[in-house]
């Protein structure tokens, strides 16, 4: 452990060096992960950076990038009295086209919040006449857990457990951002816990093909400051590379067992991202072999026609092209209590984080 004095000294060093290396030219760094977004706000890191260094949030909040169509499907399932929905709490308040899971729960839908996807299996065993659907949302950190739960259900012979997959993969989203003409990013803070699973190799294209600096970052304030320092140093020296600040958790090879489990149950599929659109091979669909666990193919459902919310600029926020404050709804009709768009819902959503921690700045 470090003493407060040691933390302060290290933070002073990084802050000073970032200022010295950054110079006058604007530098735009993207923290891809929603957990980083929150950590950056909590530690007040933006206030420590020179004016020329801007941090923008990326598409790394899984709930935020989940499209309306998925929510509408989950909401439609929740209206089926034979169905129990199990989900992480974040999904509850996300508005679909005309309703939300929270609204369905209030109307009597059996929707249960979990800490771990494994709890779905206990619920399935306790309710043999119901169909238990787990809302499998999340990146590579979370997807192996859902896959492991499917394998455990198979082993235990549980036949009333299903998964509705909206899993997404981080590297294809990075590629889409790097290829977009309207997005400019000088360097990426890469998600440490996704990296703990997938390792370093899947990011190599960021440097090899796009010559963009990238650092896998931890979540403590000093981890983030050091990662920003490493990025600014690369930019200053014009030596883009892939570095790992979070070596204590993000091993270069990742977690091989977790990746094997993930791809045993799932295969890559095209997926729709809110704000970004359809990206080839950026999502995960259940393999045919495990098709009896796939809610979409096993349980028929009629889903309403999807509508987008007029005025919500969540899509541009997720691409890092605007800050939440540029959205006309932010802090007015779109509030954490009554979110219009998904970015205001999840605690890790960019708009929610700006609203919670950024009040002093956006109110001027």
């Amino acid at each position, binding site marked *: 452990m470090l003493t407060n004095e040691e933390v302060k000294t290290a933070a002073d060093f990084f802050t000073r060096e970032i200022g010295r290396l950054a110079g006058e030219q604007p530098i735009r760094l993207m923290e891809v992960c*929603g957990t980083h977004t929150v950590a950056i706000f909590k530690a007040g890191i933006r206030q420590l950076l020179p004016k020329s260094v801007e941090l923008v949030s990326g598409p790394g909040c899984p709930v935020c990038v989940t499209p309306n169509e998925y929510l509408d499907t989950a909401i439609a399932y929740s209206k089926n009295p034979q169905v129990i929905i199990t989900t992480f709490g974040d999904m509850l308040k996300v508005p679909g086209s005309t309703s939300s899971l929270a609204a369905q729960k209030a109307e009597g839908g059996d929707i249960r919040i979990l800490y771990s996807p494994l709890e779905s299996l206990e619920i399935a065993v306790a309710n043999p006449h119901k169909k238990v659907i787990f809302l499998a949302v999340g990146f590579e950190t979370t997807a192996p857990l859902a896959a492991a739960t499917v394998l455990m259900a198979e082993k235990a012979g549980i036949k009333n457990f299903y998964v509705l997959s909206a899993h997404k993969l981080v590297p294809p989203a990075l590629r889409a951002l790097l290829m977009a003409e309207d997005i400019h990013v000088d360097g990426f803070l890469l998600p440490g816990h996704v990296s703990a699973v997938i390792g370093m190799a899947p990011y190599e294209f960021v440097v090899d093909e796009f010559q963009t600096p990238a650092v896998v970052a931890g979540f403590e304030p000093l981890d983030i400051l050091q990662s920003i320092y490493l990025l600014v140093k690369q930019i200053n020296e014009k030596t883009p590379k892939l570095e790992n600040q979070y070596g204590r958790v993000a091993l270069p090879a990742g977690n091989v067992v977790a990746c094997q489990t993930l791809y045993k149950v799932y295969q890559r599929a095209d997926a729709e991202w809110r704000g970004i659109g359809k990206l080839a091979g950026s999502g995960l669909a259940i393999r045919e072999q495990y098709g009896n666990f796939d809610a979409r193919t096993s349980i028929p459902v009629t889903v309403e026609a999807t509508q987008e919310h007029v005025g919500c600029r969540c899509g541009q926020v997720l691409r890092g092209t605007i800050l939440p404050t540029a959205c006309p709804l932010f802090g007015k009709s779109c509030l954490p209590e009554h979110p219009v768009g998904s970015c205001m819902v999840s605690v890790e959503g960019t708009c929610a984080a700006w609203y919670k921690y950024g009040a002093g700045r956006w109110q001027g």
Partner: protein
Amino acid sequence: MCLAVTGKIIALQDMLATVEIGGVTRKISIMLLPESKVGEFVLVHAGFAIQAIDEEEVRKTLELFKELEQYADQ
């Protein structure tokens, strides 16, 4: 969503581990980290151990932060 915490494994039984996280104990699955051992620190995400913490790397990171002291107020 990718929030994860560090826990210390204090007991193991098949694919279940009892971990201590900040003074609280809970059972987690080690299906994704089957080589886990008692006494190890692991990263816990939604009821699963997803990675072992490399204590040597922890030490190196802390050393590096401490070494920055010599650059203080330069």
